[in-house]
């Protein structure tokens, strides 16, 4: 079987298109590359969706955590502590069994136990908490002069927030937010290793990598392939976030722009 044929068969295997049976023996390098790459679809889906939705909740969380009102501040503080203080792995397990018992009493929550929705909700809440903390830190380090200048121009409330506070917050938080995005994508590999089942063997990249490692007793081929894909994904993310960073800092003279310092040393 030629490599093009393999790509046609297995390129979209992780979303259920193409060949149904996974290869059972005599794995070629091409098969491993194709299937693990096919699994990346799920990693990108989980990461991108959680980032896109989590961003808004994170802004709300940061604003309410910085609020002087106790009734806004306390819930945000507790939410952030709950999701940052416990392992994502346990959160997945708890959420899955919670959804399972919810489904038993109310059948309308049927979709929650499948990974595409249930795991996405957990990732969304988790990244919102981590990002909320980053945004909160940025909110607190907005230069006092910026706010005073806005006041002097007669801005207040919503217009001050939208035109001064929010853009400055994003600009200050962006390098840390880039890191968070990278680690969110790494965290997506946990989905199918916690309780969420991979229905019809439609799993993510790590699911297929460990499938090959288990079948061949040889970890030295599939895991480096996985690493290759993830380093590629990380580079794409850094590039994309760098573009946004440039846009956010476009009004500053070149020398004063915040450099994207990447510290890729975190995990959850």
């Amino acid at each position, binding site marked *: 079987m030629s490599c093009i044929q393999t790509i046609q068969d297995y390129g979209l295997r992780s979303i259920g298109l193409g060949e149904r049976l996974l290869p059972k023996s005599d794995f070629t390098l091409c098969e491993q590359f194709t299937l693990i790459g096919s699994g990346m679809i799920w990693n990108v889906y989980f990461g991108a969706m959680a980032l896109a939705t989590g961003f808004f909740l994170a802004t709300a969380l940061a604003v309410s955590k910085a609020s002087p009102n106790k009734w806004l501040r306390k819930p945000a503080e507790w939410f952030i502590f*709950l999701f940052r*203080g416990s392992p994502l792995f346990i959160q997945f397990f708890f959420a899955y069994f919670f959804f*399972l018992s919810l489904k038993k009493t109310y059948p309308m929550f049927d979709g929650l136990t499948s990974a595409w929705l249930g795991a996405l909700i957990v990732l969304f809440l988790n990244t919102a908490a981590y990002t909320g903390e980053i945004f909160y830190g940025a909110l607190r380090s907005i230069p006092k002069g910026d706010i005073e200048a806005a006041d002097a121009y007669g801005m207040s409330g919503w217009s001050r927030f939208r035109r001064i506070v929010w853009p400055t917050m994003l600009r200050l938080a962006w390098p840390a937010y880039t890191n968070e995005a990278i680690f969110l994508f790494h965290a997506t590999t946990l989905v199918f*290793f916690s309780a969420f089942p991979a229905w019809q063997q439609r799993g993510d990249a790590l699911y297929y990598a460990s499938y090959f490692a288990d079948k061949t*007793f*040889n*970890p030295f081929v599939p895991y480096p392939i*996985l690493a290759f894909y993830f380093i590629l994904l990380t580079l794409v993310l850094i590039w994309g976030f760098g573009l946004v960073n440039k846009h956010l800092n476009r009004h500053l003279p070149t020398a004063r722009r915040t450099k994207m310092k990447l*510290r890729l040393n975190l995990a959850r």
Partner: protein
Amino acid sequence: MFSYCADPDTLGTFRWFSCYLTNGVHWSFYLSFIKVLALLAVTAPVALGFGFAGAMAARSHVPPLSWLGKAYIAIVRGVPDIAFFLFFVIALDQGFEWIRHKVLCPEWTDPIRQGNDFLVCQAAKLPLGTSPEWVHETYGFFLAVITFSIVFGAFAANVLFGGMRAVPHAQLETAEAYGMTRRQTFWRVLVPQMWVYALPGLSNLWMVLIKATPLLFLLGIEDIVYWARELGGTKTSKFTQYPHGDWRMWYFLFLLIFYLGMTRVSELGLERVMRRLAHGQATSAGELLRKETTA
């Protein structure tokens, strides 16, 4: 455990919980919490040692050594840590067996990798097929500790390398001006001062390490996640609800609270360490302490 547990009448009462929560399997569950704490207690210093060695190597002036250190730091970043956990457990096991195979069975000529199999001679098997069960479990735990140490050692090396570079350069120049050798400067000036710069990163790492402990489950250890799944579920869910319905949600809620408690205690502890280390340092935290005591 209690004498009244033998009486079937307790089944309907609330006292049943005191019997249920102290039965044999639950003691294994509680023991697995000790396993997690033991992993933390062993891994933290070993990983710090790995990290220190890695950072020293990365700072070295001998090019191959410095490349080695930098590669060690770089390789674990950018790739999901869970992939490394899954990788190292198999790779280390095969590595150990391969070395023993070479030493113990030199007359063996067949290739070790035959198709999809990894074959070593009987004497090289780790642990030996004849050894008791606790040896198997200890060996698995030992592999897990090494795996955690390698991965977190790389994270720690990165933090310590940054901490070493954050020490004001004037301090090192002064040491040199006093005629200290490179070695003396490193141990007497750089190392005592770098901790305060490295501590925020290290405390962050400790939090990450705590939150990585449930991954033991993926390494095949009977840890808290394993027991929570076992004990929470029903034995034969198709037919009966024996000994209870699906309680896995509550068991995992308990684990969630356990981890939140660990995080909170660590936060308070690390704050105290930070205060102690900041004492007398030329940082803003040290300055704040000085003002507090003099005011």
